[in-house]
């Protein structure tokens, strides 16, 4: 039997956000749909790589959320570039263990994922894309969570 956990859980995350707000630098742009949310995030500390930039994150919640991770990507919009980072491909796909089937835990939430991504940007010092970015972006047809990422550089 399908577990319709997603709708209630996403609705409750939304209620919590409406009641308690989000941490600084994270803003819910579109959160009325129970399947797809948009966030704007920015880096709070002055990191020269991202100074003054705002980035847009898209969350897609599948039926099995939160047992399975949400699909989280950066999307490009006017004034919303894809951040440069050794674990973020130029098509917006994010290489973060938390978002993979192995690293995900159902006690994570959209808010906690945003905070992890924010801190991943804050601590970054390399103004570069992942190795093989162009080739990956040209060839990739897979859904992000099914990709077996190779963590080329675990120091980041």
């Amino acid at each position: 039997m399908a577990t319709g956990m997603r709708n209630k859980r996403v609705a409750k995350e939304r209620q919590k956000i409406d009641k308690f707000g989000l941490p600084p630098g994270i803003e819910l742009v579109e959160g009325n749909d129970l399947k797809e949310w948009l966030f704007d995030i920015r880096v709070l500390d002055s990191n020269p790589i991202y100074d003054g930039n705002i980035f847009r994150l898209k969350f897609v919640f599948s039926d099995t959320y939160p047992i399975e991770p949400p699909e989280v990507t950066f999307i490009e919009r006017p004034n919303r570039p894809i951040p440069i980072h050794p674990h973020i491909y130029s098509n917006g796909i994010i290489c973060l263990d938390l978002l993979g089937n192995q690293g995900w835990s159902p006690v994570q939430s959209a808010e906690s994922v945003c905070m992890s991504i924010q801190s991943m940007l804050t601590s970054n010092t390399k103004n570069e894309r992942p190795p093989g970015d162009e080739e990956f972006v040209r060839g990739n047809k897979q859904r992000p969570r099914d990709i077996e990422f190779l963590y080329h550089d675990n120091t980041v």
Partner: protein
Amino acid sequence: MSKSLQLKEEGNRHFQAGDYIGADSLYSKAIIADPKNPALYTNRAMARLKLNHWDSVIADCETCLSLSPNNMKAHYYLAQAQLSLRDYDAALSNALEAHRLCAANNDKSLAAVTSIVLRCKKERWADREKKRLREERELEDRMMDLLRKDRDEMLAAVAPDDEAEKKAVEEEAEQRMTVLRNVFEAAREQNQNKREVPEWAIDDISFNVMVDPVITKTGKSYERASIMEHLRRHPSDPLTRDPLTPADLRPNLALRQACEEFLEKNGWAADW
């Protein structure tokens, strides 16, 4: 294959295709061919649930339970039919029985059964709440009438030309009625205000109030249905990622009782 099983499978095909009337009549034929098979009754009950034929659902479930007393599906469908008929106490007790059987047999319907338990608690609370509010309102009206009657009797006893005394009686009566209205109003408001779910009652996976909390090695408790769903895919602790299997889980009885008591008074929280 026996005739009754053939009819049952044909019934299942009709059910899958959304033809519940067709499924109902095929299951009925299967029952005539083999009246002792409990599964035929629960299948027919399932079709009849879809058709909103609550009384026949109940009859089928009861027949099934007389053949097979620990039939999870019969308790589960019975709870749904009784809930639709607003027989809340019976619905809750069958939902809890279905839950107990699911938990004991590691049944995959645990999540669905857990939500029925919550729905029963919520609707039972809402029904009691409605009754309570109606009784309070009736009491308020009656008290008001008594105060008016009291005032009228006192007015009748005052000498006809004593305007000052009449005014005093009216003012006093008015004052009493205001106090009475305020007392009832304050009681109503207090009820509306305390709608907060304590963190300890919430399962961090489904974000629901817990019905059957189980505790892991870290000391953290989760709803049994949620953590089982997680463990089916990843046998790891959600917080530490250490290996964790269903056998490591222990019921958290004190928390279960606390959640039960909380929901008893705050049924709205079953769907906060």
